[in-house]
């Protein structure tokens, strides 16, 4: 088990990167505690898989160091980093039985056959695979195979970290949530450090204690799901987390008071200095916008009933704002006015949360 630190890591696939866009991974400083469940969340091409390959040793960073606990593993090859990985599509040794698949890493490390049998049966029980042990691996369904892939990491006691590269991609949508909660359950039982890479916020937020949201090679924010939801540090994080994402509305600052379309807005963070700032915006989640007797007059554009809640789209001076109404509530018929919950509305200068 090990604490993982990325110290001033930068990486480019070109040997002489010129502009910003040629850096697959811009300046990253991250520390993950031992035993935690972490997620790298971001759209395709944001550098999350590059970071995973740097940790796994498939790639060596152009700059910076990677530490497991205190020792520098930057140049250490993958097989000496004592880690395991579950890939996007199931990687199993087809000709072997499930038992041999799970026993394979231990056999290569010269464990005795009783040790192997006892450990494999224990892990198989955890993965609910005990009835399939002597079936050929190729006969299992995709989610069964992914469990084998994971099991090969779990059987080893010397594993520093288990990495998941979008493991649910080929799983049948109907079974996805079962495997996801199984992974969460396993993490709580086994306590090995796990790093989960995905573009799907549901998977990232439900699996991880700490989620790093990435965009174009940069880590915009790392935090618990609640921090990311309640207080996004960057407008992109606000947009990317939550469905529908945070409303981002342009606003002006008249001598210290933020104004949205000439309505003053109460905020939880002070706008701070606004000189040499290009853009000031306010961000508020649909969950924290509500109807009220006094407030900004709006016109209701669209109402989507999604069962558990309703998504209401309202408009004021061609800015469209999304709101969430819980089951049973319904929007007023006319003369609607909305207010933002001051504690959960923030001002962003140049897309970053104003200090």
């Amino acid at each position: 088990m090990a604490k993982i630190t990325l110290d001033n890591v930068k990486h480019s696939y070109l040997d002489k990167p010129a502009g910003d866009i040629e850096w697959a991974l811009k300046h990253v400083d991250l520390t993950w505690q031992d035993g935690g469940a972490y997620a790298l969340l971001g759209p395709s091409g944001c550098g999350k898989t590059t970071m995973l390959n740097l940790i796994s040793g498939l790639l060596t960073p152009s700059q910076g160091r990677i530490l497991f606990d205190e020792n520098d593993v930057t140049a250490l090859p993958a097989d000496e980093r004592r880690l395991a990985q579950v890939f996007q599509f199931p990687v199993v040794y087809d000709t072997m039985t499930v038992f041999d698949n799970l026993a394979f890493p231990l056999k290569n490390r010269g464990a005795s056959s009783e040790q192997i049998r006892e450990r494999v049966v224990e892990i198989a029980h955890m993965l609910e695979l005990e009835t399939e042990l002597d079936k050929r691996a190729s006969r299992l369904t995709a989610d069964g195979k992914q469990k084998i892939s994971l099991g090969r990491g779990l059987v080893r006691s010397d594993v520093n970290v288990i990495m998941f590269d979008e493991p649910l991609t080929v799983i049948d949508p109907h079974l996805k949530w079962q495997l996801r909660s199984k992974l969460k359950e396993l993490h709580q039982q086994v306590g090995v450090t796990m790093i989960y890479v995905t573009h799907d916020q549901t998977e990232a937020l439900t699996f991880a204690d700490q989620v790093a949201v990435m965009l174009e090679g940069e880590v915009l924010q790392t935090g618990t799901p609640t921090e990311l939801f309640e207080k996004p540090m960057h407008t992109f994080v606000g947009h990317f987390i939550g469905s529908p994402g945070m409303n981002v509305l342009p606003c002006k600052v008249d001598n210290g008071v933020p104004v949205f379309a000439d309505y003053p807005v109460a905020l939880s963070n002070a706008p701070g200095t606004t000189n040499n700032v290009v853009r000031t915006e306010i961000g508020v989640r649909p969950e924290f916008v509500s109807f009220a007797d006094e407030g900004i007059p709006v016109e209701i554009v669209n109402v989507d009933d999604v069962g558990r809640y309703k998504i209401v789209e309202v408009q004021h001076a061609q800015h469209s704002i999304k709101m969430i109404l819980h089951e049973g509530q319904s929007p007023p018929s006319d003369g609607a006015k909305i207010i933002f919950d001051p504690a959960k509305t923030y001002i962003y200068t140049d897309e970053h949360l104003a200090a």
Partner: protein
Amino acid sequence: MIDKIANQKAWFFILPVTLLVAFNAIIPLMTVVNYSVQETFGDNVFFWEGVTWYEQVLTSDRFHASFLRQLSFTGMILLIEIPLGIAVALSMPRKGPWVSVCLVLMALPLLIPWNVVGSMWNIFALPDSGLLGRMINGIGIDYNFTQQPVSAWLTTVVMDVWHWTSLVVLLAYAGLCSIPNAYYQAAKIDGASNWAVFRYIQLPKLKRVLTIAILLRFMDSFMIYTEPFVLTGGGPGNTTTFLSIDLVKIALGQFDLGPAAAMSLIYFLIILLICWIFYTLMMRHENQ
């Protein structure tokens, strides 16, 4: 696999192929069958012979001898070429400019006309003026493939290995290229040895391509004619008179068509049978 739609109109698509192949196969095959059950002394007069030619061929020692020679030749080259082809494919570079250079150079022998292969090896292995001949004699081994049966046999085998192993290399290399990189990564992480990587990842993935390589090599080697004929003419004596060479001798040499036709059919059926058995074994193993 694609779930195919039932469509009887598809027969129009395969009609041209059926016609062309049938044109070449059906009528000539019928003439062979025709000859194999009759006796003729020319000017189109035929006497019904029934299965006498078949009995005669099946019981003749000459057929047994050339059949055994053919079987051991094919067995030997399969035992050499398949493992050698895989070994070479494994050691080839996977990426970069060298890949296409290797492929072109290796594919070259496949494109040399079979008689040129025969005469090339003839010139190459002549005891006095051939490079190979001089080298072997130079190191003290008395080597003259034109007289010594063992040298003739070995030279023919080495020539075939030189000529066809590249086909196995190409097929095995293609099989290796289709293995996703994630498998090698997983094996490295699991601490698998090179042997384990080969045994549990590469070999299973190569199985289908190897079936085809073995089938192709079995067919081509079992009906080999030109190269050994040009190299040794079937000699010395009849050490390298394989089935095809023997058949042509009987058919064109002694011109007794009956036995030649019977032998042809037996020859063709043997190949069919062995290929069919091998193919069904492989397919049953595949989805078992």
